[in-house]
Every structure is written in structure tokens, then in C-alpha cells.
């Protein structure tokens, strides 16, 4: 056992932070921004960067749930469907008695959390593989969407929802503020509570976690419940940003959330990682997408450029640690 003197400890701390995956990913984001603003004049404009972060907020919030699930050794393929269900379903919960628009939001969040809990139930109690369970859930939700989508003429005239999607208190988009709060809570729960520690243990070795007394079933359900909640929240924000929900509004967030998690250094096998990496991971993804948009090239070349950029950035930051 080594007890080191304080000076050495703090210096190595700084070194550890600087060489950590989250930090590297942040550095790459900064690099891409700087390079891009030279390539395209308006890219680095404050308003544009702010908009990119606002977009990243949605991916980031979905990725928050995904990070929990992945660290605990699972994966959630139903996030896209849940985002859509939230965005399309919210108007259905509108009640005239509540002018603030809070009730439908709470109802939607409760619903998506419940959907997540059902995922967790299947994974924990039926022992269905997470991928199968959440894929099946996504399929169910498609069926649900046929029933609820387009069925009514209600629009999303919800003041709170459009506030979240459009307001800029103190010049900062509300979506970003929500993301900041979420990030803070997520990081605390993940790294500073026993619950978070249990997740890492479950992901790294479910058997060892079980034998150490970790309540596997309830923790699994909680994790998927959180993912459902986050997807629901993201659905509400995109609904606000786009003024209108539609089927397919959540589609981009499945691969994006997984990519943000993995780009941020969380192991897809579970047990290792941090949401601190998913945050820059999300920003990186929207940045590259925006960059590709302003490049004038045929769709084929743009797609190739996008893939090559991700691969190149992965080379900078993404070595997978050896396991087992």
C-alpha cells in the first residue's frame, strides 16, 4: 500500500485528468471547432456554437440514460421509440385545467419511466437479453404510435414545452440549462453514491456483484427506468424545439446516444466509463454532423467524410483497455 505525499498526489491527479478520455474528447471537440471555424466562416460564431450545444443537449440527455444502462452491462435500443412516444404522446395528456402545461409533462415522464421499468423488468426477471428486450419494446411502441399518432388534431400548445424548446434565460437556451442540471445530477449519482458504485460492479461482473450483495433486480429496473425518464425528457425538449412532434422524431437518437457513450470512453461491455465522457461525445457528434452539412459534396462523399472523421477522432482518443 502506498501513502503518497500530497504534492505528488495532486500533480498525478492533474495528469490523470488531462490524459482521461473525457478530457481528451473535450480537447478534440475544441480542436474540431477551431479547425472548422477556419474552414467555414460562420461555423465558429457564438450563436452557432450555442445552437450546436443545444442540439447536443438532446443527444446528451438520451445518452445520460444510455450511459447508465451501458455501464450496468446492458444496452437500450428503445430510446428512439421512447423519445418519439413522448413527443407525439404529450398533446394527448393536455388538460385544460392546467394552464402551466406541467401536468402533461409529468404524465409523459411518468409514462416513459414506466416504459423503462418494464424494460428493466424483462431484463431482470424474465432474464431476456437487454438487446432483445429493448428491441421488442421499440417494436411495441411502434404499434402504440400507430394508435396515437395522427389520430387527433391536437397540437402541442404547451407553454412549458415551448419554453424548454425555445427560451433563452440569461442568453442560454433552456435545453442547455436542463442538460447542465441533468449532467450534474447524473455525475453525482454515478460517481458519488452507492447506487452508482453498484452499477459499475454489475457491469464489470454480475456474478461477483450478486455475491457481494448488490440487489441486481431492483438496480437493473432502476437503470432502465432512468433511461426511459431521460428519453422522455429528451422527447419533450425536441418537441419544444420543433414545435410539433411527429413519428420518426426520435430516430436519430438511437445510434447517436450509443455513439456518444462509446466516443466518450465508456466501454460497451459495461463496468467502465463515465458520463463525463458522453457529454463531449454528444457535442462531438453534432459538431461533425454540422461540419458535414456545410461541406459542399455529393451525398456519397459527405457520408464517407462523416465516417472517416469519426474514425480519425477515435484514433486520437479511443484505445480500448485490455480486459479480462
Amino acid at each position, binding site marked *: 500500500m502506498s501513502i503518497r505525499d500530497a504534492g505528488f498526489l495532486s500533480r498525478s491527479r492533474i495528469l490523470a485528468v488531462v490524459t482521461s478520455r473525457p478530457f481528451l474528447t473535450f480537447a478534440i471537440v475544441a480542436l474540431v471547432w477551431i479547425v472548422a471555424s477556419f474552414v467555414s466562416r460562420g461555423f465558429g460564431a457564438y450563436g452557432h456554437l450555442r445552437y450546436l450545444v443545444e442540439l447536443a443537449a438532446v443527444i446528451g440527455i438520451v445518452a445520460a440514460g444510455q450511459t447508465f444502462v451501458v455501464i450496468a452491462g446492458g444496452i437500450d*435500443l428503445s430510446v428512439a421509440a421512447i423519445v418519439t412516444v413522448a413527443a407525439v404522446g404529450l398533446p394527448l395528456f393536455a388538460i385544460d385545467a392546467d394552464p402551466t402545461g406541467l401536468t402533461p409533462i409529468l404524465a409523459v415522464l411518468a409514462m416513459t419511466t414506466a416504459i423503462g421499468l418494464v424494460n428493466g423488468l*424483462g431484463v431482470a426477471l*424474465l*432474464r*431476456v*437479453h437487454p*438487446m*432483445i*428486450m429493448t*428491441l*421488442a*419494446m421499440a*417494436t*411495441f411502441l*411502434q*404499434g402504440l404510435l*400507430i*394508435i396515437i399518432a395522427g389520430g387527433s388534431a391536437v397540437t402541442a400548445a404547451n407553454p412549458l414545452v415551448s419554453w424548454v424548446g425555445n427560451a433563452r434565460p440569461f442568453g442560454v437556451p433552456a435545453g442547455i440549462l436542463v442538460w447542465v442540471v441533468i449532467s450534474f445530477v447524473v455525475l453525482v449519482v454515478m460517481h458519488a453514491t452507492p447506487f452508482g458504485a453498484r452499477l459499475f460492479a454489475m457491469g464489470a461482473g454480475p456474478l461477483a456483484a450478486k455475491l457481494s450483495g448488490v440487489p441486481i433486480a431492483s438496480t437493473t429496473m432502476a437503470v432502465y427506468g432512468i433511461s426511459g425518464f431521460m428519453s422522455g425528457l429528451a422527447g419533450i425538449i425536441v418537441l419544444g424545439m420543433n414545435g410539433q412532434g411527429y413519428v420518426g422524431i426520435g430516430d436519430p437518437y438511437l*445510434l447517436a446516444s*450509443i*455513439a456518444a457513450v*462509446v*466516443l466518450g470512453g465508456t*466501454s*460497451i*461491455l459495461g463496468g467502465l466509463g463515465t458520463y463525463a465522457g458522453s457529454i463531449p461525445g454528444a457535442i462531438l457528434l453534432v459538431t461533425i454532423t454540422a461540419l458535414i452539412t456545410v461541406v459542399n459534396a*455529393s*451525398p*456519397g*462523399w*459527405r*457520408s*464517407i*467524410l*462523416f*465516417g*472517416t472523421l*469519426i*474514425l480519425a477522432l*477515435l*484514433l486520437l482518443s*479511443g*484505445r*480500448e483497455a*485490455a480486459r*479480462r
Partner: protein
Amino acid sequence: MSDASISPHARSGSLYWAIQARRNIGVRGLFVVVLAFMVAYGFLFHGLFTGSGFAKFTQSWFPLALVAMAQVILMLTGGISLAIGALVSLGAVIAATTMTGPLGVAGGTALVCLVGLGIGAATGVIVVRLRLPAIVVTLAGSFIIAGAALLVLPRPGGAMPPWLSDLLAGNTPAAFGVLVVVVLLWKLYLATPLGLSLYAAGENPVGAYRSGVPVDAARIAAYAISGLLCTGAGLFVAAQTGSGDPIIGNSFTLNSIAAAVLGGIGFLGGQGTMRGALAGSLLLSLMISVMFFLGFTPVAQYVAQGLIIIGAVAIPQFRMRAR
């Protein structure tokens, strides 16, 4: 936990078959489910037992079976690919743009195979040698490959020689025959040292390396073979549709994973069997036709599909636990 039903000492000559019998244990439940669906389908659609009915049915299963195999090979080594669909599309557009041109069928086939092997091997080298997470490498790869497919054929078009379409996807069960050959080749590959190394490289790479297994070579070979299967599936899809479409393969990515996981393939590598994954892909394909003949509305189709997928995994497990 020892299983009393297994004969105590298999004769040495039958070791291979004893091992094969052992491998069936985990997938018996799924086999039963698939068989039930097969029977239901035959009952609902009597034409299934005619030559062309069987041919058409196996044709719709065939590409999914190939991509499921492509995914399984990777998952056995602890890898995964999100570029399966894009590779199928690329194989299809290459086939549809070359085979009626100067390269001809032989040249076109060779090109399709080479591209699959080459891209697969390149992916393998990147993942294995640079130690990058397969899931993001192949996600990035899927954009690059999809872009390449769009460059070859910016919109659906191209053509396949009609005789080839009729041969592969006509009224004869040629596709089924090809599938049997592919499965036999897989068995053959598994019987080579490199094939068995797939399992070892996936489950206990350090131990395998120390035992003298060429772990990296086994994994790179797996990516190459996987790529070949994908573009091969693309060639078949082009033949089946008589033309090329640069986005035709998209849905194969998720379906290949679903088939594999349904078939009992694990993510950590070295878990599961190819026969399970093939059964999984067959179930996914059967399900579509059976639901049609049961007259399900789209909503019912979605709900039933979800239930079937979960049930196929959960029910065998419950039976195992109940015993």
C-alpha cells in the same frame, strides 16, 4: 453441473458428434419455437410444400441467414459490426453495376467477393491491431461504406442478368442449396484450428494466446469472412430484385444482431452457436409470413412481433429453470 443424460464415455471416434450433440442443449428451446412456427406456417399456407412455395420462402430467409452468420462470426470473437447493412447494399450495387457490363457475372462476383473480404479484413485490422472498440469503428465504417454505395449507384438502378436472377431466386430452391453449402463450409471452417480459435479468442484471449492460438489472426480472419458473407448477401439481394439499390441493406444491421442474440450468441465472445443464430434468423423471417396469414393488422403485427421475440428467449429459460 454434470448432466446425467450424457453417456459417460463417448467412443473416441464419435467425439465430434458428441460435442455437436452437446452444443444443441442450449438451443433446444428455440428449435421447438421455430418448429412450431414452421408447422403453423405449413398449416396456414399449404403451398409451402410445393417446390416454388418452398423456394420463395427460403429466398426471403436466405439473405437474413447470411447476415446473421456474418454477425455471429464477429460476436463469437467478442466483436460486433454495425456496418452489416451498408456492406449488403454495397455488394448489391456492385453486382448490379458490373454483371451486365464488361466484367460479366464471373468478374462481378469476384469483385463483390473481393470488396467484402477486403473491407472486412481492413475493419478487422483496425479493430484488432489498433485496439479500437468494434462498435464505433463499424459505425463509422457504415457511413463510409454507405457513401461508397451511393457513389457507385446514386439512386436505385443497374441490372442483373435475368438468368442469374432466375437461377438464384427463381422457382427452384437454389438459395436453400447455397445456404446448405455455406453452412457446410462454416462447419468445415469450425473444424479448422483457426475456426475453433474463434471461441477461444473471444472468451479467453489471454489464455488462448498463451496456449499458442494466433488470436489476432483468428479475429481478423473473422472480420474478413464476415465481410464476404455480407457482400455475398448483397449479391443475392441484387439477383432477387434484379437490380441494385444503394440503401437496400439498411435494416439488416439490426436484424442480424437480433437474430444472433435470439439464437443465444453472447456479447462477451465465445458464447453460443451458429445453429442457434440460424434458427433465430429463421424465426424472424417465419414470423412475418405467419402473421400475414393470420391476418394481423399492422398494430397487431408490431405487438405480436415484440411478444414473439421476448417469448422465444424467455420461455425456454423458464422451462430450464422450472426443471
